[in-house]
């Protein structure tokens, strides 16, 4: 592994920022390392951040970003080194202590309580009180104010968080964070599921906070968000702090190279020319379910990648679950490989002659069994495939696992390690790989690159295209417009449980996606 300076061919640019140089940084880490057993998550990191800036932290999956902010937020103690707040050493033993010092964090794995109401969640640890007891009315009123501040008037403070979509939850999480009047606000991939409208709200918010002299730390794998927003950028790789620089001092290409230690070629693999007249592998007509799907028509042919776009909560998730047999009471016509198909259960879906696979939304609860080994996870859908009678054939199982690991280049030490020891990107690969062993014909992907670094994303894009070329039909839902445009042969935009537009070729542009997503009449033509 080259070090950063060698890579640049020049010593690292010293970090400077107009007018702020002389002040002590608000938060500073000195020589911080963090080990998990044998794993080094952070090594000898010096890091500073200042008030009144928005500071991006960039790096591949597993670079140590989350670990860094967990140390700052009191979730994890550092193994070595120390932390300074306004020049004074501090050692937080819990998130509560960090919060008392003004450091508030929105964690990657959200920290909302599903069975409590939005208002309860926003004021979870410091509710307004009267006579020592929680004042529910005041809490509700102040929640409404906060939600209004981030343009979320549509969220009722009395709703249970369980009933909110992921993007609404992220917004509630943001409301909760700002309710604490932080001096340091940390967002760890807190915008990963937000749609562009909400992202804009968050940008505005962060801008205002900057004016209020708050230090914001922003972790995201979406480069364009970082470009648009941040004053200062820090790149981490393999637990090392590689470099910190000001906005505009590096091109995106350079940043990516700093992050992954090499250049990457064009982000998306080229699309093949469309082949007409193939009979669809999956054909859906007038699919309805509850009040979420109101008559969906889509079809996708072998070799094709169909994108699903649109604002969050328009029925994408339900569509994929309905096809996979998870939902009850689905009506409409579905054909798989030309044969009628009635979804009943995932077990049935995967045993169809034209078989289905689903990479679900949340890999931690729906995709993986975190405490089981990588091997067991990979084999979960495939035991029938590697068994003779009731008994598992060990050698066949081992081959299948080895093949999957090589095919997806999953970075594993030992396949008997628990899957929770993998970084997020590699976990995601495990979810995809376990289905590839099953050799499905139609692959349903629910935002498979959420929270995945650029390098890994690119691998996944390449893999999707390879699978399509090998004759698979792919349905890809993504919140990332670039991804839809770059990857998909065609994109269907969903709005309120219906397909409102189908875009392909020339018409597959960000503008068209946005206007169709908002269901602006005629917008598609614009």
């Amino acid at each position: 592994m080259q070090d950063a300076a060698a890579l640049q061919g020049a010593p690292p640019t010293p970090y400077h920022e107009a007018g702020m140089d002389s002040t002590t940084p608000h938060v500073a880490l000195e020589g911080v390392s963090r080990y998990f057993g044998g794993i080094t998550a952070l090594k000898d990191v010096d890091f500073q951040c200042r008030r009144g800036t928005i500071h991006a932290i960039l790096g591949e999956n597993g670079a140590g970003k989350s670990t860094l902010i967990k140390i700052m937020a009191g979730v994890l103690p550092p193994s070595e080194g120390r932390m300074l707040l306004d020049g004074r050493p501090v050692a937080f033993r819990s998130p509560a202590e960090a919060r008392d010092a003004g450091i508030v964090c929105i964690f990657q794995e959200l920290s909302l309580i599903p069975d409590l109401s939005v208002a309860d969640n926003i004021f979870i640890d410091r509710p307004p009180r009267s006579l020592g007891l929680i004042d529910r009315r005041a809490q509700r009123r102040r929640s409404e104010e906060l939600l209004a501040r981030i343009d979320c008037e549509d969220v009722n403070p009395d709703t249970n968080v369980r009933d909110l979509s992921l993007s609404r939850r992220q917004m509630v999480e943001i409301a909760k964070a700002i309710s604490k009047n932080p001096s340091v606000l940390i967002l760890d991939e807190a915008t990963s599921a937000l749609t562009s409208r909400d992202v804009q709200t968050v940008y505005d918010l962060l801008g205002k906070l900057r004016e209020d002299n708050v230090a914001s730390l922003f972790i995201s794998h979406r480069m364009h968000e970082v470009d648009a927003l941040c004053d200062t950028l820090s790149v981490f790789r393999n637990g090392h702090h590689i470099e910190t620089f000001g906005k505009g001092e590096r091109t995106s290409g350079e940043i990516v190279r700093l992050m992954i230690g090499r250049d990457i070629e064009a982000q998306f693999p080229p699309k093949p020319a469309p082949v007409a007249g193939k009979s669809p592998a999956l054909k859906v007509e007038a699919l309805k379910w509850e009040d979420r799907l109101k008559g969906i028509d889509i079809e996708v042919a072998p070799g094709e990648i169909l994108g699903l776009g649109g604002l969050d909560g328009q029925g994408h998730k339900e569509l994929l679950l309905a096809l996979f047999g998870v939902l009850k009471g689905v009506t409409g016509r579905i054909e798989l490989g030309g044969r009628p198909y009635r979804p009943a259960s995932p077990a049935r879906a995967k045993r169809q002659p034209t078989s289905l696979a689903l990479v679900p939304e949340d890999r931690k609860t729906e995709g993986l069994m975190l405490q089981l080994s990588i091997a067991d996870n990979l084999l979960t859908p495939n035991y029938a495939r590697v068994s003779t009678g009731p008994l598992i054939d060990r050698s066949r199982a081992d081959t299948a696992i080895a093949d999957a690991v090589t095919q997806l280049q999953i970075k594993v030490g030992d396949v008997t390690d628990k899957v929770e020891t993998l970084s997020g990107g590699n976990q995601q690969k495990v979810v995809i790989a376990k289905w590839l062993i099953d050799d499905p014909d139609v692959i349903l992907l629910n935002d498979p690159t959420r929270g995945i670094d650029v390098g890994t994303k690119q691998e996944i894009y390449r893999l999707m295209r390879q699978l399509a070329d090998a004759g698979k039909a792919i349905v890809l839902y993504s919140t990332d417009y670039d991804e839809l445009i770059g990857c998909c042969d065609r994109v269907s935009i969903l709005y309120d449980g219906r397909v409102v537009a189908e875009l392909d070729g020339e018409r597959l542009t960000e503008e068209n996606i946005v206007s169709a997503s908002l269901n602006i009449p005629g917008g598609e033509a614009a």
Partner: protein
Amino acid sequence: MRDLILRNRAFAGALAMFLVLFLGYHALHPRGFSTAVFIQNANESVAIAFVAMAQTIPVLMGGLDLSVGAVMTLANCIASHLVTGSPVQMVLGMIVTLACGTAFGLMNGLIVVYGRIQPIIATLATGAIAIGLALIIRPSPGGEIDGDLNWAVTNAVFDFAETYGLADDGNAAWLQPFVNIPVPLIILLVIGFGVWIPFKRTVTGRTVYAIGSAESAAFMSGLPVRRAKIAAFTLAGFFASCGGLYLAIQTSSGNADVSQAGAYTLNSIAAVVLGGSSLLGGIGGAIGSLVGAGILRVISFYFRILSIDPLLQPLIEGLVLLVAVSLGALRTLRVKNRLELFR
């Protein structure tokens, strides 16, 4: 919002079930709707209701306390030695009894938090310890609890006043609206509401719910997770010892009955479920469990007024319990997204 209603629907359903059963019983009873029968009903329900409330708090946290019955028994045995003598001594005895039970709950909490042992197993073990201690304290049943206290506390307000010569021997005019209320009911409601409702509206209480709903999120949100866990088990110990203390006064004695302790623990879980709390945590409340305990008791009341073959009674009781808890399954049938089943 929908979920909020659903949450209350479980409680409302429990309350409705209780009322139907309870009113039906009184309608069939030859002396239904009389003070004597209310007193009897209340007396019989206090201990199980306290133990059910005790069980609720760990359940809300997503755990189970298998020691509640044993702690009740332990408190019962302690009280049988201490609640005697002069009024001051008796009050002191009661305080010590409650303190012991609470301390035992605290110990449960400390083991769960600092030993990082799953509550169900930790309390399975500490429950055995509590029973062992109870057997040492009271190798064979007995005790000399004050007879007046027994009579005063297990009757209506009037008898209480009369026994202790309060309010003009219970004849004071201002007391008249209350004279027919059973004292055990008052004790139950005062302690139940007086402790639970405030607790629920503290950050610690809310944290108990949060832990049951999503523990790591609770921790990340800066909630006092450890403190809440310890508080939950401590409060469970307190409620369980209230049950034990009442039992001691009610029976004027202590009895380290192992099978009774086990039965109370299991019934407390059934009461919690009948009362609409989720064993997965995060949903429900102690007041629901109070109602759940009532349901459990009323079911058995029916055997006393209906003519049912005595040898079929256990079967019928089992079936009714099974059907009652299965009513919760109706919710499952309505679920349209199967992923919601897997919480």
